């Protein structure tokens, strides 16, 4: 027997665990020590787990064929300051009595950390449920397998009828999962009303825990709240999973070679559901909400003309199976109360099911007068404190003024003022419209969005836009000057200019001839030098040509020819045909020199 701590503050909780290891016998005769000084918050008695021929040793020692392990796990809350000696637990087996060790618990006065907790705060809600793993030194709810196993963990072994039991299905593996396990058999929950606590789609999160000296990767497969609907022993059935993982599946559970997908099945877990205590029960036969509950009531108008409807809203908010809460209908002589509209909003903060249930009644006062609606009461049992209370919403007053109206005969029987369900159904059917007597009897209806051309037309816009983008880009590229191709273009242009100059010479047009020659030279120079030369003086041009690698003779020849062209263009009188022919020859020679010329970069020069 051991406690997870031996010093607690008033109101603080601790876990007491009694482990029994029997070889060749039963552990049914286990006697717990006197725990009357503590509140038993929860008690878990997992099923027995047998191991065959494992030679683990037991109370009698020595290897046997069958061993039984079981443990009692209790969560206790300290009531009062003091030192408490817990007597040893005993087990009578075959006429012999075996005794455990004793445990001493010291309860200190409640300090900052030992104040009595909020009675509504469930102990299981305190740790973060997403990261809390069951104890690694217990082996309940599972068939331990050093290679991997499924474990079913319930947080309450002995809940009350209607009290939430949180069930978590874990998968323990030796290696991290590389695929998703498939649950081939869900845990059965006969006798429970359940609600999933995990979102439908989620990523498996991994934790690690050491058990039996081996480190396991632990995955939460399922977590749900189960509310017992009947007393006695109820069983959470075993879960079966199949793990498929491409290639080395066997390695997942510690083996080394590839194998078929592996299957693991958990063990059933039984909880012992107790009746609600009779002591202090407000209504011995009526329904009791198990958990916490607060009621509030409001009415949209407190004064109304006779025959007008008001809306009464009663809201129940709390923890527990909130969708099962029944709020009594308001009654009153002279009131017509219609069927309520009920809305549920269920939440699961910290995996504790709760939320709000809202009843909304339409109430029609049929006579003038003052009516009292309520009070509204629901008996509540708090399983933590083990006390009964009554959730209550105070009565409201409704004043109706004006002449009385006749109640519809169908809807408001005199004795209750409520519309009868038969009348409600009949009224609803009367609202049904007549059938339609003409129909196109359409046999096939293919929606526009499912026509093959719809997607094609939808894609047309984006495709056309992409095409336009491409076209614009190509056009821009074509328009952009390309320095690497400039000399070729200039050479072709110069050739054309010289042809034009030849025609001008033939036509005896010296001005036009020299202009064409000068332009041919300038175009080639600009293409070679990479900038315009019109703004340069001839000495500057000569210097640049020499600086960028053209030999001095050629540079002088170019500049002299340009100067000669300028001179001849402005004093062309008397220029002979022979002179123009010579000029053409010189220019061809200069252009050939320039074509071979590769200027140095400007910075280098």
């Amino acid at each position, binding site marked *: 027997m051991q406690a997870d701590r031996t010093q607690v503050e008033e109101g603080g909780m601790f876990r007491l665990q009694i482990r029994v290891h029997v070889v060749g016998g039963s552990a049914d005769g286990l006697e717990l020590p006197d725990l009357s000084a503590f509140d038993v918050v929860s008690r878990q008695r997992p099923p027995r787990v047998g191991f065959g021929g494992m030679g683990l040793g037991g109370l009698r020692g020595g290897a046997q064929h069958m061993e039984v392990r079981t443990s009692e796990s209790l969560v206790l809350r300290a009531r009062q300051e003091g030192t408490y000696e817990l007597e040893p637990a005993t087990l009578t087996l075959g006429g012999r009595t075996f005794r455990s060790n004793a445990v001493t618990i010291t309860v200190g006065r409640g300090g900052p950390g030992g104040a009595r907790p909020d009675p509504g705060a469930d102990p299981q809600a305190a740790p973060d449920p997403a990261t809390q793993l069951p104890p690694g030194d217990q082996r309940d709810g599972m068939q331990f397998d050093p290679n991997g196993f499924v474990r079913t963990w319930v947080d309450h072994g002995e809940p009350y009828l209607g009290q939430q039991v949180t069930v978590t299905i874990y998968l323990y593996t030796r290696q991290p999962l590389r695929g998703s396990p498939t649950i081939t058999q869900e845990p059965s929950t006969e006798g429970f009303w359940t609600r999933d606590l995990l979102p439908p789609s989620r990523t498996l999160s991994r934790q690690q825990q050491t058990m039996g000296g081996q480190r396991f990767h632990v995955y939460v497969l399922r977590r749900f709240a189960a509310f017992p609907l009947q007393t006695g022993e109820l069983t959470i059935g075993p879960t079966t999973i199949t793990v498929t993982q491409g290639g080395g599946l066997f390695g997942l559970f510690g083996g080394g070679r590839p194998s078929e997908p592996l299957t693991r099945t958990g063990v059933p877990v039984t909880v012992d559901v107790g009746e609600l205590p009779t002591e202090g029960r407000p209504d011995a036969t009526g329904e009791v909400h198990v958990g916490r509950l607060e009621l509030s009531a409001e009415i949209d108008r407190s004064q109304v003309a006779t025959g007008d409807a008001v809306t009464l809203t009663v809201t129940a908010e709390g923890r527990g199976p909130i969708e099962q809460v029944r709020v009594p209908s308001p009654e009153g002589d002279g009131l017509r109360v219609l069927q309520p509209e009920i809305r549920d909003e269920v939440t699961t903060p910290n995996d504790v099911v709760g939320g709000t249930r809202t009843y909304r009644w339409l109430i029609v006062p049929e006579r003038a007068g003052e009516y009292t609606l309520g009070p509204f009461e629901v008996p509540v049992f708090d399983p933590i404190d083990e006390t009964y209370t009554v959730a209550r919403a105070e009565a409201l007053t409704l004043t109706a003024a004006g002449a009385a109206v006749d109640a519809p005969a169908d809807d408001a029987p005199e004795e209750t003022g409520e519309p009868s369900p038969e009348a409600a159904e009949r009224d609803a059917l009367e609202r049904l419209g007549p059938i339609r007597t003409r129909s196109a009897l359409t046999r096939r209806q293919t929606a526009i969005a499912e026509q093959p051309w719809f997607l094609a037309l939808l894609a*047309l*816009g984006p495709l056309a836009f992409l095409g336009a983008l491409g076209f614009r880009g190509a056009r821009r590229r074509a328009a952009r000057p390309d320095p690497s191709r400039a000399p070729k273009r200039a050479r072709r242009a110069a050739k054309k200019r010289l042809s034009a100059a030849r025609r001008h010479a033939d036509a005896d047009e010296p001005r036009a001839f020299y202009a064409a020659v000068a332009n041919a030279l300038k175009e080639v120079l600009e293409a070679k030098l990479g900038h315009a030369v019109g703004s340069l003086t001839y000495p500057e041009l000569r210097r640049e040509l020499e600086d960028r690698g053209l030999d001095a003779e050629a540079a002088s020849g170019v500049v002299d020819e340009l100067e000669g062209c300028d001179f001849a263009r402005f004093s062309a009188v008397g220029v002979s045909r022979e002179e123009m022919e010579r000029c053409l020859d010189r220019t061809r020679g200069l252009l050939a020199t320039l074509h071979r010329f590769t200027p140095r970069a400007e910075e280098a020069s």
Partner: protein
Amino acid sequence: MRVALPLALALLGALGSPTTASADSLEEIYERANAAYFRGDYDAAAAGYRRLVDLGVVDPDVTFDLAVAEARRGRYGEAIRFFERTLWLRPGDDEAREGLEAARDALGGQRAQSEGEAEVDTGPPLSEAVFGGIPRGVLAGATLLFDLALFGVLIALLFARRESLRLGLGIAAPLLGLALIVSGVGLALSRGWLEEGEPAVVLAERASLREGPDPRAGERHQAREGQRAWILDADGGWRLVRIPSVGRGWVEAESIGRVRPIAH
């Protein structure tokens, strides 16, 4: 010869006469179902309308009539299912919407008679609440129109030179983009492209949601007639369904009915 001729004629007649199902034209089946309804024979009327549905008729007027006939028979789950189908085929059909509410109210009244109080699903799903009144063809056409207009404007923006024209196109482009997003989302919602599973309605008074597709599997939840469900998977005569506020589990196929016709 005196014997052979009648025999041949009889044989020809037997070969040439179609079966009863195919002999009746759709119009005749419809007329007979309407006549059955007006003489108060709702079972025959519902059978006639259902036969049309089985023969591939997906007309909202037929599904409306079938829903009304089922409601008259007290089969409110079926009525809700076919009113929902009518609204799927013809969004914005006010009579079908009112019929759906009436069927739900009637189901509530029926349940209240046996249980003292009743709770039934109310209200349309989000997609119907926002875009329910707009026919899907209009949404599809609008999506197409806005798509072409938006990209036409963008193309024009690439080549337009005049500043005033560029300003106008620059204002039009984001507006058209917004309109395209709204109509596209509306189309996706109304087509159910964003839903997980096929919408359906629980038909059985109490449908057990089991842990597996087997009658021996444990019961996890119970669904009630008229509740909306989404079919996620199928295995033989079983369907895996998700029911909001209840959970998921396997139900027998007869306990649940698809809202949308299978042809869709």
